[in-house]
């Protein structure tokens, strides 16, 4: 088993975004791979969205549906439990990751299986299910092509939809040659996919238990849906005699007809396709068709805390399309690993700190991993105002430090500077004094009519930029002189 780097959902401290970003920014191969991939998908998405005359209405419908569902989440979840049970499935409730993992490994052990096949489920990455199963002697095989790639490489996902986006074909070829027991292989996508197919086919046919995530679950009918592009997901949910699905409680939709909206929004936003290649629906169990046993594990793991936050709760609208990652200028330069979470990019920057709770330096740094350019909000198919939530969470991080951080946090230079500036801005006279002071105070830094290096925390600014000195006369001094 590979030791994976800790992330925000592991116990212990994770590095800050700033620290991790430095590594990826220096990786020119990664920067090229990411730039190429995100630019391509960005262009394609824009084109397929452009051809929809009612895109804005669809977005609004998606948002409204999600918000209505979240307002009555308790009732819809109970309805889902009833529908799934009626259709012959078993529903389990998990408060946190540990509980979810224990439920799932319990089911696998009961079947006497020591191998399971999985189709990509970010929720199981969040709970660290694979590691948990491994600790009980059960090996989980990822069957989504990209998930398989990163599992074989011993890495973690760097994108919620394209987990191996940071790798190119040549890198994947090398990995398959090393790990898949093949002798000759080109770096053509067709050949790479075929090598994976041969390897996975054996796993599908032998597995007693399949584990999946869920894109949606319908309260009214008890139907669970997985949306994917390869068909491996369908193999996973139909071939093994036992199927276990782990889903976050927010993945629920009230009625079957709600798919009309989401099946238009999701493929265009995620893979820039008009229609999704493989959409699998299953409702409990049906004799002679698919698994003989179905378990649905409903995961909270911090989600009801998010729901309790008036501004933050819109985060739960997310349908995991990843459109926000593909347009984010920060994600494009740093890649997903810099976020130290299974949820990278703009959505991760707001989801992770809320799920794990404010007050941990690693995840507290995530709401700051944004220039607040707003491109994410513009493309979000369910209208999550990500910049608004980022700003709200920054406020929560600072208030948490100020109120509970102790002396060290109160003496923090940023805190002191922000307070001093707020004080200066509180009164025009103090403000004018501060302006004069800045003019006088800058003189040791000015060289040849510019400031080429700043001290302390501001040094990063002058690493690549020159600063113009504060001019001799402020606007208000001019106004007073001319008009006063």
């Amino acid at each position, binding site marked *: 088993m590979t030791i994976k780097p800790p992330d925000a959902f592991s116990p212990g401290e994770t590095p800050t975004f*700033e620290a991790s970003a430095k590594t990826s920014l220096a990786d020119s191969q990664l920067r090229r791979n990411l730039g190429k991939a995100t630019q391509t998908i960005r262009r394609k998405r824009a084109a397929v969205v452009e051809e929809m005359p009612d895109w804005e209405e669809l977005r609004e419908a998606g948002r409204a549906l999600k918000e209505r569902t979240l307002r009555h989440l308790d009732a819809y979840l109970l309805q889902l439990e009833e529908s799934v049970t009626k259709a012959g499935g078993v529903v389990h409730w998990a408060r946190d990751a540990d509980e979810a993992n224990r439920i799932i490994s319990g089911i696998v052990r009961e079947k006497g299986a020591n191998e399971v096949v999985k189709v990509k489920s970010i929720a199981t990455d969040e709970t660290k299910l694979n590691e948990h199963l491994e600790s009980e002697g059960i090996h989980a095989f990822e069957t989504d092509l990209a998930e398989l790639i990163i599992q074989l490489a011993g890495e973690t996902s760097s994108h919620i939809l394209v987990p191996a986006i940071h790798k190119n074909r040549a890198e994947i070829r090398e990995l398959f040659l090393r790990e898949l027991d093949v002798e000759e292989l080109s770096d053509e996508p067709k050949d790479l996919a075929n090598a994976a197919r041969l390897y996975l086919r054996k796993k599908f046919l032998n597995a007693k238990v399949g584990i999946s995530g869920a894109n949606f679950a319908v309260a009214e009918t008890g139907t669970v849906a997985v949306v994917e592009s390869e068909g491996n997901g369908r193999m996973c949910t139909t071939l093994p005699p036992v199927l276990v699905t782990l889903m976050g409680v927010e993945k629920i939709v009230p009625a079957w007809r709600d798919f009309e909206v989401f099946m238009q929004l999701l493929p265009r936003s995620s893979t820039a396709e008009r229609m999704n290649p493989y959409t699998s629906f299953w409702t409990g169990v049906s004799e002679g068709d698919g698994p003989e046993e179905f378990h649905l594990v409903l995961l909270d793991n911090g989600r009801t805390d998010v729901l309790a936050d008036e501004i933050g709760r819109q985060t739960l609208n997310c349908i995991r399309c990843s459109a926000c990652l593909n347009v984010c200028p920060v994600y494009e330069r740093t890649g997903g690993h810099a976020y130290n979470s299974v949820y990278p990019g703009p959505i991760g920057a707001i989801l992770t700190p809320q799920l794990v709770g404010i007050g941990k330096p690693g995840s507290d740094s995530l709401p700051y991993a944004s220039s607040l350019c707003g491109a994410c909000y513009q493309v979000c198919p369910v209208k999550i105002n990500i910049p608004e939530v980022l700003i709200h969470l920054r406020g929560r991080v600072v208030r948490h430090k100020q109120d509970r951080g102790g002396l060290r946090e109160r003496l923090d230079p940023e805190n002191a500077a922000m307070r001093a500036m707020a004080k200066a801005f509180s009164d025009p006279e103090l403000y004018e004094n501060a302006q004069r002071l800045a003019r006088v105070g800058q003189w040791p830094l000015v060289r040849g009519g510019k400031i080429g290096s700043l001290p302390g*925390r501001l040094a990063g600014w002058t690493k690549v*930029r020159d600063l113009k000195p504060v001019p001799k006369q402020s606007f208000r001094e001019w106004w007073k002189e001319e008009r006063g």
Partner: protein
Amino acid sequence: MRVALFITCFNDTLFPETGRATVGVLERLGHEVEFPMEQTCCGQMHFNTGYQREAIPLVRRFVEVFEPYDAVVAPSGSCVGMVRDLYPMAADLAEDADLARRVADLAPRVFELSEFLVKKTGVTDVGAYYPHRVTYHPTCHSLRMLKVGDAPLELLRNVRGMELVELGEAEQCCGFGGTFAVKNAETSAAMLGDKIRRVLDTESEVCTAGDNSCLMHIGGGLRRLQAGINTVHLAEILASTEER
């Protein structure tokens, strides 16, 4: 129209020429311009960095200073975005219903300069003359928070003597982002690098925008390269005439 100027603390202190240009353009168009001396800062830097309790008194001050005016004009899409988009959130945080009501009343009367000229008063030709090759960078807050659309470009297209060159990937963020440029200096620099490459591609003499903060960042990078391209605020181009 009786217009109050909100010059913003950033322009007031570091870019007073932008404030003077804003006065010039508005007066040339016949507006009666006032500068309420009691103004300081909109509080955006504090609010966006998380120091939101500290920003609330600044929000109150802004509302008190500007609420008597029919229209408030600022040469900054970013600060106007703060007022229009985030003041309601600040009022909620302060749990002050009266402030929320006053914010809702004032915010629609606060305009970014190009927005005021094109959308509010219907002017697209301000009689400017600027004989240079210029490229325009739409700043994120003007573009996405305020949705000023083509207003700045419409104004620029009517500037005599000017050659307007399209900027590639124009809508990509320059990487400034306020304290982002300090807290995530390396990422910000990587974004700036790509923006500068696009600006260099235009072979312009001048890069303009509606926000001095983004221009300070882009200009600082261009100066470091000694690229020979100046950054000039939109207001200064609009204020230029053949006489001066």
